């Protein structure tokens, strides 16, 4: 890779970060707006999360007495992991400045790092709700993990690699594979994973006010001001990242395989369009769902595990 190409690739990564950071709050706003419209409301507008964030960044930050550096560092870790992933996942182009960072296992593990940081912060406050949230979050994480890795397994069989860039490029090269049973089953499994990891219905209700039903919200009850802004931004970025990951794994059309400016532009537009479409679809589906009892969630996850396992089996036997 020539020096110029490296510069371009770095710039492309920068563009991805900018698109995800700027776009994520609007995605959250869009999903809330869709939900509001379906409920017959007027809705606060797509830009409401941006207004919320802008305000939160300028509010006073507080720190409960008796908390340690973990409490302060957790939002930073969470946001940094999201920013890192926005740079390395091939959203816009499959050409990367450096190799060895976009392996799907590593991507999932870095995502998990953010979750763990927040869970530790929830425990660090020493409140009952923070602890409950952390406890539930790691339980869900532990049960989601097998599904994720098996889905990755199923996807990687096709191209013989678990590197995201390879998978995306492989799907671009032979689009018919998307309709294979293995791919479809993996897509279903992955959808459940995205819902569980992003804390959406029916696993977690992002707009609940009732502490006893919270998972993600319970861990952030103590945050305020810029710390809360970072957590909220990171949470919307994670949703955007997961949705972007999902669409690029199963419908990568539009992702540039070169660094040509026009291809990059198309990549950006397609990314925004695709993620927005999936986001709207998710929001519409959520209107029809109620939150599952926490102890029914394992059933959902066992089901998704089954799909992932079948996907792997199908990729072995029907290949």
């Amino acid at each position, binding site marked *: 890779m020539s020096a110029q190409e490296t510069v371009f690739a770095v710039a492309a990564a920068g563009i991805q970060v900018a698109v995800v950071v700027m776009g994520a709050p609007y995605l959250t706003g869009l999903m809330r707006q869709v939900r509001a419209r379906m409920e017959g409301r007027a809705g606060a507008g797509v830009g409401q999360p941006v207004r919320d964030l802008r305000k939160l*960044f300028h509010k006073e930050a507080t720190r409960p007495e008796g908390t340690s550096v973990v409490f302060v560092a957790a939002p930073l870790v969470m946001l940094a992991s999201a920013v890192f992933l926005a740079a390395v996942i091939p959203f816009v182009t499959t050409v990367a400045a450096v190799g060895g*960072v976009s*392996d799907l296992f590593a991507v999932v593990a870095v995502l998990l790092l953010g979750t*763990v940081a927040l*869970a530790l912060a929830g425990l660090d406050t020493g409140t009952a709700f923070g602890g409950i949230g952390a406890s539930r979050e790691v339980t869900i994480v532990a049960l989601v993990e097998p599904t994720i890795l098996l889905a990755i397994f199923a996807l990687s069989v096709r191209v013989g690699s678990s590197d995201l860039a390879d998978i995306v490029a492989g799907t671009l090269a032979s689009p018919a594979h998307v309709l294979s049973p293995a791919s479809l089953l993996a897509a279903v499994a992955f959808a459940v994973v995205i819902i569980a990891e992003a804390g959406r219905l029916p696993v977690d209700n992002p707009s609940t006010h009732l502490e006893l039903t919270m998972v993600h919200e319970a861990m952030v009850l103590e945050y305020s001001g810029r710390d809360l802004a970072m957590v909220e931004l990171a949470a919307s970025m994670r949703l955007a990242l997961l949705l972007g990951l999902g669409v690029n794994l199963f419908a990568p059309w539009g992702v540039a395989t070169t660094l040509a400016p026009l291809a990059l532009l198309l990549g950006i537009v397609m990314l925004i369009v695709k993620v927005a479409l999936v986001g709207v679809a998710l929001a519409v589906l959520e209107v029809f769902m109620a939150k599952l009892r926490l102890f029914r969630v394992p059933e959902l996850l066992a089901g998704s595990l089954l799909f992932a396992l079948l996907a792997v089996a199908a990729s072995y036997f029907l290949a």
Partner: protein
Amino acid sequence: MTLVDVGLALVAGGALAGALVIALIPRHVRPLISGLVTAGVGVGGVLAGVGGLSGAAWTRVAPGLLPLGEARLSVDALSGVFLLLVGAVAIAAGIYGIGYTADAPHHENPAGSRTTQATVPLFVASMLFVPAAASVTTLLVVWELMALTSLVLVLTEHRLRPSVRDAGLWYGGMTHAGLVAIMTGLVVFAADAGGETFEALRAGAADLSPAMRSTVFVLVLIGFGAKAGLVPLHVWLPRAHPEAPSHVSALMSAAMVALGIYGLIRVGFDLLGGGPRWWGLLVLTIGAVSALFGVLQASVATDLKRLLAYSTTENVGLMAIGIGAAGVFAADGNRALAGVLMAAALLHALNHAAFKTVLFLGAGSVLRATGLRDLDALGGLVRRMPLTTALFGIGALGAAALPPGNGFVSEWVLLQGLIHSVSEGVAASPVVAVSIPVAVGVVALTAGLGVATFVKAFGVGFLAQPRSTAAATAIESPMPMRVGMGVAAASCAVLAVAPALVGGSLDRVLNVLPEVRDTAPLADSAVTLRLAGIQGSMSPLLITVGLVLSAVLVAVVVRRLAGSAPRRVVGVWANGGPERNSRQELTATSFAEPLTRVFDDVLRPEHDIDVTPYAESAYLIESVTFRQRVPDRLEAAMYPPLLATVESWGRWSRRLANGRVHRYLAYGFIGLLVALIVVAVTS
């Protein structure tokens, strides 16, 4: 004179002379000398290991040293990697022991006794000679020495707690059952191969009948599996590791357990030269069950050291998955994949040694500072013991297999090896096609539960508010303990960001095992970990750098955007309630409650609820006591029937021993006659 000579001479000489000196010197200088001697023996091990890894084969024979024959030592790269591992753990544990075994101002530390202090270097030395042994007799002698010295160390605190005696009994029983299995297996092997040196075994292995080879393999699997703590022979781990002094726990859990893995690789792949596919599947299955069972028990454990012991079973299980899968693919002739998986197992052994040392030493610091192992009573240590907390955090990050921790690297290599078991268009055999996805699922669930386990251990044990006065008044450990932990944590960090550095060494190890080597499994590259033969690359260094850069970027942007006004310190929000009470916090038990319920069918926890009403009325409740115990279900299902059988045999055989000397002599005579008749008939 090579590096190995120097190293092993240092080990043997240092340990013997050191033990003698320690036995003679007064109590107050013993911790320092014992620690230094142990660390010195460890340095010897590291030197010998580096020498072994550099590739040149090294053999020494000392005829007549052992009663039945010669002592034969030989160091190759496979020995080297385990010498390095044991030596490095010993250095950290030795330095740590200087502080840990020192007497507290007002009471005597049982770990400071003459026996214990003199035994530690001997234990380390006997461990170091296990990978260097090159004949059956030598191996069995040092193996037994290792078992005896560790048993003495486990029993250190037997005057304080009766549970120590119980643990010692279990450990002694299991380790000797294991020894019998290894001895039977190797002696049978040696008898058929026509020689007891490893060279003779290697040469004779090919001529053994398949049934004989399999018998030998199963026997050594039982023996080494018992030492490695594989299910169902794991029962001694959660007893002995918590009860031993913590630096000994670290030595046992990080180093000695790895020697079980060493034995399995040495006999299975080197001496026997690999075997049929079902060997691999057997090891893979045992490994998967161990990993899952271990992590499940760890995720609901509340005793910090018991949790770490179960986590050892988990990690050994992961290593066994790698070894088993390597065996399966080696039997199928896919040596590139087998090489990657074997490299994954070895790398995980190194990583596990590094983070488990940190964790056990950290648990020891907590134990010394608070007298507590119970996570339900800990908490808030981050303010009282900041450095210990930070170092424990590094270890926990590694054990949770999260980037940028070191455990993540080896689990990644393991997963890569497993998922490349099939490529498009190549139909795999059904057994592989079923067992490998299940193995991936097990590794994944293990990783997930591992995260839950170590979030609990770190979050409940070290963060939040203290849950007892002992935890609230803890003080940071003395300097040597912090240095010991620091050494281990530093090796965690190095392994985490630059695992590619050990790629060359691992390749030389695989050279010893031609069955599982095609090309160098981890291509040499300083920055990125590239797997040979399969498409897979990951750069822990770049990921770490990327994360740090992102964090800096985020911090700078947030500072520009929001300013850097200090956070107002406020009371904890307790829903309008007046103040926080540490009784509102989640304990380890309540933290693991959702998991306990999800895995209710497997764990079957036992609950006790006592409701105490006021004397005035049965309806007014004064207090509610809730106790939960999660017994080891495998142990409960398998061992009592076994022990009952053994006991009934014992009762029966007492009839044979009625105290008459004549009868005893007659037994000897009959035995001799039978032996003679057997010899006469068979020859």
